[in-house]
């Protein structure tokens, strides 16, 4: 079973606030990802990282930013939250066995911006 943790699980904040969603994994995986998922909808890749000091934007345009200073930690930050940011954010890391590419997901952070 994968050990990947997200905090907070639920967050309700007002417009304009700065927030950081935390994601940590204890497996030493190099590759990590952030996906955004609206209720009942597909997942959209917003950021990914192939290792320390590596970050890239995904397919879905996002006003969030990420950092990867340590292998185990991949936080996502919104400088000024808006109601359009209301969604579930899922963090994942990739199993490093030869070329399987299997992702393991955290429990998710459900964000509501009022």
């Amino acid at each position, binding site marked *: 079973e994968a050990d990947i943790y997200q905090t907070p699980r639920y967050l309700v904040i007002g417009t304009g606030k700065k927030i950081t969603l935390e994601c940590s994994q204890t497996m030493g995986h190099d590759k990590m*990802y952030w*996906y955004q998922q609206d209720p*009942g*909808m*597909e*997942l959209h*890749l917003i950021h*990914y990282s192939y290792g320390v000091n590596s970050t890239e934007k*995904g*397919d879905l345009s996002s006003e969030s930013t990420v950092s990867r200073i340590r292998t185990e930690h991949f936080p996502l930050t919104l400088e000024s939250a808006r109601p359009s940011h209301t969604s579930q954010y*899922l963090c*994942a890391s990739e199993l490093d066995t030869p*070329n*399987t*590419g*299997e*992702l*393991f*997901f*955290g*429990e*998710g952070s459900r964000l509501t911006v009022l």
Partner: protein
Amino acid sequence: ELKVEQNPLFLSMQEGKNYTIYCNYSTTSDRLYWYRQDPGKSLESLFVLLSNGAVKQEGRLMASLDTKARLSTLHITAAVHDLSATYFCAVAGYALNFGKGTSLLVTP
């Protein structure tokens, strides 16, 4: 751009029946994954299919991959209520690209 299409998107079936969920994708890939998501929960990995002709089975679920047809199927045998969930297929590009998901409801 890699596109992944699942059908059906919604499926209501009776317990004991069989059904198949289809996943088509638009560009060449030899890695495909099936995930399950329960309401309000995260995604749980079900199957990893890594080559043409790969077939995996777990309980009442069986997944297969045809890379030439760019098609994967998830077959449900003798459905039970516990299988009610949303099932996603995902295809490997530089990251995983997900389908819209199939919301399955198994009724008595």
